[in-house]
């Protein structure tokens, strides 16, 4: 992590990255930030695509994402004159999985897509959605129609899930049980492998014999694919660690979110992922100081309301900045890369139009305080 002159500002980060991944705890503004970064990239003259996941309805409307073809890149209009272009798409995990099967399974694809067990696996395999976000990114990367890809990540139980998804998928297909199940002779596999016997026993006892049959059918129908899948997972895993990939950690100033963000920071640093920026979103604005002796003001008057609110807002804003200072300290002390820190204030209204999105983009590119 030494060759590259690290970005010192968000603008530089956007300029020097081919891939940006926004990640962080639930509800802190990952999707909003991803869209705002896309906007910054397009302003700077790049051909950008933003892969969003489950954007708030108003944001999806503002970006004009069509319901029917949401999974394909769609050009965002109404941003005024920009040197570059901004495309967005909404991830459809199942369709991405289908595409992957079509791409990798050759003649067997049709049979797999029609297998009832496939449908449930596409939705239930742990980490499937996380993995598909990354898979879609790989597809876009290969297509080469964009020079900056911004990927939003799904709210997961643990934000680190997103990082381990390719490895988990690979290990699923490399699991001894799975490997014996799809081995050359199923009958043999069943009697020879105690692990398989355990698996069949467990599923049979749990879910009934029919599910065992369907599952074995499904597993053998995708046999031969798993090498391709594993290679793909490995390629994605490498792509995530590229020099021109930038992870952007998004958090709110709430303690629970910061704890999770720190956890994620550790996972990023340990895993050798280029952690390049931390965005503190939803920070309450700190009003200028106002000292008036409350004793002078009649309780219940409008001015009393205003003073009380000023006091509460100030207390909250100050405490939030103290929480964030800890975050900065910890990241500074663990980082391997130069990290850009930004603060985005909680706006007085929701982000549901392109002009409020532009406000967030401006806040991101403002020089650090």
């Amino acid at each position: 992590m030494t060759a590259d002159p690290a970005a010192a500002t968000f603008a530089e980060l956007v300029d020097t990255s081919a891939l940006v991944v926004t990640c962080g705890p639930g509800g802190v503004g990952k999707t909003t930030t991803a869209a705002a970064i896309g906007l910054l990239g397009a302003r700077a003259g790049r051909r950008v695509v933003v892969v969003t996941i489950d954007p708030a309805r108003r944001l999806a409307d503002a970006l004009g994402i069509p319901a029917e073809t949401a999974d394909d890149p769609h050009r965002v209009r109404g941003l005024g004159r920009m040197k570059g272009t901004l495309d967005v798409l909404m991830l459809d995990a199942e369709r991405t999985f289908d595409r992957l099967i079509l791409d990798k399974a050759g003649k067997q694809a049709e049979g797999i897509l029609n297998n009832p067990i496939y449908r449930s696996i596409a939705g239930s395999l742990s980490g499937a959605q996380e993995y598909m976000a990354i898979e879609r990114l790989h597809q876009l990367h290969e297509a080469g129609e964009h020079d900056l890809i911004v990927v939003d990540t799904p709210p997961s139980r643990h934000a680190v899930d997103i990082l381990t998804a390719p490895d988990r998928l690979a290990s699923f297909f490399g699991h001894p049980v799975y490997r014996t199940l799809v081995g050359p002779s199923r009958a043999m596999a069943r009697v020879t492998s105690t692990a398989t016997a355990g698996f069949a026993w467990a599923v049979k006892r749990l879910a009934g014999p029919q599910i065992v049959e369907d599952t074995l059918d499904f597993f053998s129908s995708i046999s031969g694919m798993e090498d391709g899948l594993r290679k793909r997972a490995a390629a994605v895993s490498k792509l995530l660690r590229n020099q021109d990939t930038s992870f952007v950690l998004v958090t709110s100033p709430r303690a629970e979110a910061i704890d999770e963000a720190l956890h994620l920071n550790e996972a990023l640093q340990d895993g050798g992922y280029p952690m390049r920026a931390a965005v503190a979103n939803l920070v309450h604005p700190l009003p200028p100081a106002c000292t008036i002796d409350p004793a002078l003001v009649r309780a219940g008057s409008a001015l009393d309301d205003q003073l009380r609110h000023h006091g509460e807002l100030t207390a909250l804003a100050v405490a939030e900045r103290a929480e964030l200072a800890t975050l900065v300290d910890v990241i500074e002390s663990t980082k391997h890369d130069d990290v850009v820190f930004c603060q985005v204030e909680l706006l007085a209204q929701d982000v549901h139009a392109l002009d409020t999105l532009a406000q967030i983009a401006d806040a991101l590119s403002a020089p650090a305080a």
Partner: protein
Amino acid sequence: MTPTTDSVPDDSWIQASRVVVTAGKGGVGSSTLAAVTALAAAQQGAKVLLASVDGKPNLGRLFDGSPLTSRQRDLYSDPSGGQVRGQSISPEQAFGDYLDLRGVGGLMRRVVKAASLDVVAASTPGLEHLLVLGKIKELERADDADLIVVDAPPAGHVTPFLASATTALEAVAPGPLRTQAEEVHAMLSDPQRTQVAIVTLPEETPVNEAIELHADVCALGLSVAPLVVNGCWPEQPGLHQPVTAAAREAGVTLTSRQRTALVASSRFGAARLDLQAHQLDRLDAALPLARILLPRLPTPRLTWSDLEVLASALRGAPQSSSQHQPDGTTT
């Protein structure tokens, strides 16, 4: 059982069922509500089990500073005799307990565990959630606690979690898993046994999500507790008055710096209050639920005393002046 929109509920709903599941999208405070509900019930004298299922055992932090583990432990004793105990429940642990319950031991157990829950779960949709709910059902049956408060998994996982029994009933042939699903379904759909407490924030996206979640929960045939709106700014009508007028009325002369400061904070506060009022109206129009507002406390990090303030708000009680520590002593 169908409160009208404007009724402010008394606190009897908290123990109207044996299990309360708190549910909401990330960041709205469903874990906080779980802790607050557990505390409020203990203050009513109940023996409460607080269970975390999403693998984020942070719930315990508010009580005694350390995370919940799979071993149950005491979190709080109330002077009324009520208490809160806490534990976390992971799918792996629930799987192990399930095998115990079925008398699976020795070599077979090791073999089954080696097959890894991941691989087994891949062929049985919703299995992990169902195992966890099955464990909660066993705890309910054991009858050690008057009330079990469950913090549901966040985000996209709430509905699949609550729907796992229904899903399994559709997909699974008769057998132990189906029996498990039937028993879990019976627990979830009985209003005397389970209520879902939906929590949201007075903001656009959380409100949309609460409305969707409510529809999902109703479609599954589960009963819904009063809606909890967390993070509400206190109503301060004075914020809507121009600063100069407010000062004149109060007979106070402001310096220009004081005025600038107040204009900044009041403008922000008034805008957020408008947004909040608008979103509360939307909730009123969309959801036929009684509603409890929890205040936005001016801190990003809740402490034990904040938990007490929120528990009082949840119970609709005036704030008490004496404060109890988790171990039952008074400050």
